[in-house]
């Protein structure tokens, strides 16, 4: 152990401990800006670029960045000497001198790490003024880059390259013009961006934000000629409360439903219903392939990969197009809900498809892109018209002057609002495959599953493997969350060394609960864990916890779809994938 003194407090730390972490052990919070540490997910960003966390180390001529300087035995550190405070102030003023002053109308106002730091450091004037750097704004179907607001913290770059291994964002240019951008400063939609939104989730400022559909939804709600239907993804209910000051992990399902109804949606449905439907389709596909495999077919196409995450779909279309026949052809729950609402349900209530607007509330930014894909449109009319994030929903609720805290809990409408516990856990890593196993087990073995909780599939490790006993058949399951982890499993498949029968992949670390459209976690990974626990709680409290037992799902098949994987089901609920490896064009 090493002994160091920080602001006259002595602390013992293990070798390799940073000054920042050592200080935290004795209750000294050194301010940081570019630094980010999601401990539970093993994600760390410490370029030591912002220089806000500099401290005085006795015997050193220069100040040391606390985040990137390891403790040495006997080190004496001062975190608030006059030199440190003056320097920190100057550095902050420099950052602000190259930042637009549009806080009043900024998308990040109130949630901006830079704004908070300026307040914490008590900045009241900026002594350095000069030209600010100006860049071209870049919009895509999901993400807006307002590069003038980039402070070069490089968090997005770390997420995009190290965690997601997508490799779209990186530092470009030199000097004052240095900024984070796609190659050749092209637009995101000319890159291999998957729209996973993890860059948005960690951006400290408004340099990266979502494409905001709030007002499009308001306009749709105000249109008397339209029936507006909303679906809410599982992960939203576990996080929305945070936007209203509730503890992370607070379930607000009932209040969310009540708020949506108050906003004026004609029908408040649940994407969880569509998740149950996904299990029927995807689970059946799994069993079909599995039975082929067990019958000795060497082309059985295993492992099967889940396909409900649009970020992940974009990833393999760009990066692993040679594997595009392996994922399940089942659409994501969002895109299963759309055609069921606009065909089955529209018929049922006697309106035409084009008179229905489907809005989805998603923890995700890739969903915005997904619902704009051509294959999910009929004569130009998208199955899902607008996908809005958890954050946008919170804005909608605030705009409508709804007192969220005092709402009476309400229930989803039927029939597309009924869901099982299996649908709920879609929102966290491991949940989709657990839901699939619950159904596949019973269908495959013909037995009733006594214990529906598969603890071995849960957790936060980036890559997990488990096996489930299917009446003598050992079903091998792989789980990856975060695209970098997914890449590891895909490389195994490519090399022919994969041992799995089925693999669940989620683009975002933690699964949808950590999606790019969720309330910002500001680097606190315990928030993600709390959200996951909330979903497992909701699952445990549900009367029905297996997708195939959902009575409205049964009815849907009986009256409309026929059987899972039927011709009609294929037409409405399945999709196909594209090789996008050569689609990047250079202007």
């Amino acid at each position, binding site marked *: 152990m090493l002994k160091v003194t920080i602001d006259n407090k002595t602390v013992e730390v293990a070798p390799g401990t940073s000054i920042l972490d050592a200080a935290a052990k004795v209750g000294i919070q050194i301010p940081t800006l570019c630094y980010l540490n999601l401990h539970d997910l093993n994600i760390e960003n410490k370029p030591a670029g912002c220089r806000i966390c500099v401290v005085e180390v006795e015997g050193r001529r*220069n*100040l040391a960045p606390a985040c990137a300087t390891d403790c040495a035995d006997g080190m004496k550190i001062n975190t608030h000497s006059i030199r440190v405070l003056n320097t920190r102030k100057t550095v902050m003023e*420099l950052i602000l001198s190259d930042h637009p002053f549009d806080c009043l109308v900024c998308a990040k106002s109130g949630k901006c790490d830079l704004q908070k730091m300026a307040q914490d450091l008590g900045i009241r004037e900026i*002594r350095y003024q000069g030209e600010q750097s100006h860049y071209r704004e870049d919009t895509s179907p999901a993400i807006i880059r307002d590069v003038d607001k980039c402070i*070069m913290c490089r968090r997005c770059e770390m997420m995009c390259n190290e965690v997601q291994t997508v490799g779209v964002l990186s*530092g470009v240019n*030199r000097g*004052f013009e240095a900024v984070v951008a796609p190659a050749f400063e092209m637009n995101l939609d000319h890159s291999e961006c998957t729209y996973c939104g993890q860059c948005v989730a960690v951006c400290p400022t408004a340099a990266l934000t979502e494409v905001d559909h709030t007002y499009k939804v308001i306009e749709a709600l105000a249109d008397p000629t339209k029936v507006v239907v909303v679906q809410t993804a599982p992960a939203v209910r576990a996080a929305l409360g945070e936007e209203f000051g509730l503890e992370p992990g607070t379930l607000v399902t009932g209040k969310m439903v009540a708020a949506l109804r108050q906003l004026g949606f004609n029908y408040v449905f649940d994407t969880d219903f569509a998740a149950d439907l996904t299990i029927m389709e995807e689970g059946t596909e799994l069993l079909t392939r599995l039975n082929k495999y067990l019958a000795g077919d060497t082309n059985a196409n295993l492992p099967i990969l889940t396909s409900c995450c649009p970020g992940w779909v974009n990833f393999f279309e760009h990066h692993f197009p040679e594997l595009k026949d392996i994922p399940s052809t089942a659409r994501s729950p969002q895109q299963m809900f759309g055609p069921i609402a606009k065909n089955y349900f529209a018929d049922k209530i006697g309106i035409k498809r084009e008179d229905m607007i489907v809005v989805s509330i998603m923890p995700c930014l890739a969903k915005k892109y997904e619902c704009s894909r051509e294959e999910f449109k009929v004569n130009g009319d998208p199955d899902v018209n607008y996908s809005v994030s958890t954050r946008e929903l919170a804005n909608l609720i605030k705009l409508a002057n709804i007192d969220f805290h005092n709402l009476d809990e309400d229930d989803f409408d039927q029939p597309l609002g009924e869901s099982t516990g299996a649908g709920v856990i879609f929102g966290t890593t491991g949940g989709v495959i657990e839901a699939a196993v619950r159904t596949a087990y019973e269908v495959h073995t013909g037995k009733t599953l006594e214990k529906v909780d598969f603890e071995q599939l849960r957790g936060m490790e980036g890559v997990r493997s488990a096996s489930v006993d299917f009446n003598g058949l050992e079903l091998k399951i792989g789980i990856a969350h975060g695209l970098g982890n997914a890449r590891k499993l895909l490389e195994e498949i490519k090399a022919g060394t994969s041992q799995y029968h089925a693999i669940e992949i989620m683009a975002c670390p933690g699964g949808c609960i950590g999606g790019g459209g969720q309330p910002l976690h500001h680097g606190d990974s315990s928030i993600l864990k709390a959200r996951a626990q909330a979903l497992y709680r909701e699952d445990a409290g549900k009367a029905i916890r297996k997708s195939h037992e959902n009575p409205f799902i049964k009815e849907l098949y009986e009256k409309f779809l026929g059987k899972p994987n039927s011709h009609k089901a294929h037409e409405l609920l399945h999709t196909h994938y594209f090789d996008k490896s050569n689609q990047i064009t250079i202007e």
Partner: protein
Amino acid sequence: MENLKRVDLIFGAYTNEKYKVLESSMSKSSEEIINEMIASGLKGRGGAGFLTGMKWKFTAAEKDPVKYVVCNADEGEPGTFKDREILTVVPRKVFSGMAICGKAIGAKKGYMYLRGEYRYMLPDLMKELEIYHEHARRFGHDFTIEIRMGSGAYICGEESALFESIEGKRGEPRNKPPYPTVAGLFSKPTVINNVETFVNAVMIMKYGANEFKKLGTSDSRGSKMFSVSGDTPKAGIHELELGMSLADFVNEFGDGDTKAVQVGGASGFCVPRKRFNDTIIGFEGVPTGGSMMLFNSSRSMYNVLHNYLDFFEEESCGQCTPCRIGCQQLLKGIVAVKKGEKPSSYLDQLLKLSDTMKITAKCGLGQSVANSFASIVENFKEEMIY
């Protein structure tokens, strides 16, 4: 010339047989080579002046089986052009020095990182490299050298940015520690030295540390290549003994009207006439990677500083706040004062800013902007204002 001693070590006689010094060094042990380097007192010729022998010793002591030798030929400091000449005239000495270092630290692979603008040298260097590899094979030295081209970024002369660039990444300095001797190129223990340092190492192996030590002072052993430019009738490359006073230097190279000398390039110090006598050129005084720019009274020091800041604003890697924005603020600041848009007292605030940059910037670039800024602003304040 009595107080200024010209030396002819770098370009001087080497050996008639190709790679003879390298071959004879092969009979020496790693320890013997390193001890000779330490005894010589040779300090790195790139400008920072770390003891070469110690650098080699630290790297040799690392247990990793893979180590690298890197030659920093990214000569980008404004006003220095001596490496260009060395690589043109005596590339054999440079490769020999790298190979001797390889022997000393137990590396099998060396990289030369060549400045982008020096691409025209590549054919000749490759030819010499072929000869080197032939001879290395002949006397059984398992050490190959590869040349990697820079692409014109000044920052890639900073050692850790240079590693990043060789590794195929954006050229940006790393956090230090760890230092290159522990985790350098590809995170392996690495010796990185300047072109000239490797040549000095060869000459020390040829003549011995004692002979080398006869030149220079106790803090600055040996001789040094100087790139002399500006208002001088004798512009060019000159090898001089270290430890001379700037006055002696100006007597030899000045045009009779020298008002200031910028020692060490844009990142070095500007010494005004009144300080020529008490300024020693060497590690005990003002160190230099070799750049000596003379300015006579016809020159505006404001223009000189503007030029340097323009350079830094563009060549900062943009990674850390103090350098990325600080350089721009210094540049805008002196323009504003000159135009009368800011009071002259604003210069004091800019001096404080440059002080902050010195203690907070991540690497030598941002830290050393204050050198030229403060030395020019403080010594030529009236030229900044009027």
